[in-house]
């Protein structure tokens, strides 16, 4: 029987059909998928913090509304992704515990501080841009609920990315101080954006298995190159300089060459020594801990009034 199941699974993958929650899947696939989706969900939720940092200080009411809506979307993406992980048997409470206990990661980019309003634009342009490069192929993930979540999320991310780029275009047409602010933000976020694609292929031992399972479609270096090729003309149009003296078009490769990424910095950030790791997790933990009495009250009320009030099951996590 197990052989039949494995064969059916392999065939589904081979035919680029989708695995659904009710289907049998190998334990490794399930575990890898849960980790991937949970980390993606965590990234959405932690990613609310660096941008949320500027909502109260947005310099126009229109920009305030745009940013507030974007951060709200991120919370929505987080919930959507946690639900996808739940179809694999993971619990939201358990995933949250892993996040605030430092046992599950989120995108390293969110361990950098946002230091001016230009950062909001640059996160939209570069960070969302890199996320989209990563995520568009995941709309074809072999796991159905994740693939469907990604289709919706990518749509909204593209919208966010255009808004971010548009903010930067506006700022670059503004005062000298604004243009400096944009350049400074680009200087700080360019390299961390390249790190978002993960370590070089040579140091990424799980890539082969993930590609075989159809839960990864391109290698880290392929996606990184695609991002660089996409970003250089956008930077030119914007009028900013990307902080890499080795960046230049390679006619032979048909791609931009770029300088070496500082993988020591990447490893330090992943290990918890980035500028904001502690702060980000502490904030998430504080919200969770300080909300415990509220979640308990909601459960107690639901128990007393089973007929009257529907409380979402997540309230119990």
């Amino acid at each position: 029987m197990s052989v039949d199941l494995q064969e059916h699974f392999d065939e589904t993958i081979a035919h680029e059909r989708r695995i659904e929650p009710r289907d049998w899947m190998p334990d490794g696939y399930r575990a890898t998928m849960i980790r991937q989706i949970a980390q993606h969900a965590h990234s959405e939720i932690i990613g609310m913090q660096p941008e949320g940092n500027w909502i109260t200080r947005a310099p126009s009411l229109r920009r305030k509304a745009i940013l507030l809506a974007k951060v709200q979307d991120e919370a929505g993406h987080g919930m959507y992704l946690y639900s996808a992980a739940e179809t694999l048997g993971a619990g939201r409470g358990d995933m949250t515990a892993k996040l605030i206990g430092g046992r599950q990661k989120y995108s390293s980019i969110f361990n950098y501080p946002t230091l001016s309003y230009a950062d909001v634009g640059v996160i939209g342009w570069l960070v969302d841009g890199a996320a989209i490069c990563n995520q568009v192929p995941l709309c074809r993930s072999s796991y159905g609920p994740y693939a469907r979540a990604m289709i919706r999320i990518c749509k909204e991310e593209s919208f966010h990315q255009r808004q971010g780029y548009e903010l930067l275009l506006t700022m670059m047409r503004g005062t000298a101080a604004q243009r400096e602010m944009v350049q400074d933000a680009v200087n700080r976020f360019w390299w961390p954006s390249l790190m978002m694609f993960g370590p070089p292929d040579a140091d990424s031992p799980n890539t082969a298995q993930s590609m075989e399972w159809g839960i990864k479609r391109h290698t880290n270096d392929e996606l990184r190159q695609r991002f660089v090729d996409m970003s250089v003309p956008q930077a030119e149009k914007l009028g900013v300089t990307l902080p890499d003296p080795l960046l230049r078009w390679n006619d032979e490769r048909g791609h931009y060459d770029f300088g070496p990424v500082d993988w020591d910095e990447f490893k330090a950030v992943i290990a918890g020594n980035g500028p904001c790791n502690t702060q980000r997790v502490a904030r998430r933990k504080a919200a969770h801990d300080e909300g415990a009495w509220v979640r308990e009250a909601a459960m107690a009320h639901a128990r007393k009034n089973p007929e009257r009030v529907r409380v979402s099951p997540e309230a119990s996590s």
Partner: protein
Amino acid sequence: GAALARYCLALGDDALIYSHRLQEWLTRMPELEEETAIANIALDLLGQARMLLARAGGILGQSEDQLAFFRSEAEFRNVRLAEHADRDFAEVVGRLLIFSSWRLALFGALSSASDPVLAAIAAKGANELTYHRDYAAQWVIRLGDGTELSHARMQAALDALWPLTAELFLPDASALASVDPGSVHAVLDMVLAAAGLSRPGGATLGPVSGRAGRDGVHTEAMGYILAEMQSVARADPDATW
């Protein structure tokens, strides 16, 4: 014209400052569902603020951003309830219940205002406020009825907030509509009864020589709100965003 501008400013400032206080709570909520709900309410109020400030600005010859970012504290006309910093989730939902019940009654009256723009803003806003009030009411009931701890915190929140309510019903010469305290109290009493909570009485947050939020006399919290909210806009007044 002047009275309409002044009143739109007052209602717009209520929404702008209230929205700011909700924005501060983002990423600090007890659940993700509450993150999206509070963000949504903050967005609705920000939208109301923009329409009302635009209406006032049309008369005064100023943009919504000039009004939001370049007025001084004494020129803001919001009630002091809007600027209160909620100390826990019980205060978040308790204050929202009070504010949205009052504002909904006011917007109901204003939907037949003689100015068609204000009337339209009020009609649209009333839909949003109905949702805000219901969201808040559900949580006040959950917390009032939930555990011993949540009951105590919910009652403490109401007690702490109540002194701020007197100002909502003060006679205001520039008001284009007014609300009967009894009708708002009746709504609150219904929710509180379902929650097993009692409506506080007595103490009020006094004015300063008869002047309060609508006269530009705020609490000490207001200066900090504006310092933060206006900081980027004021750092470079010639900037375009």
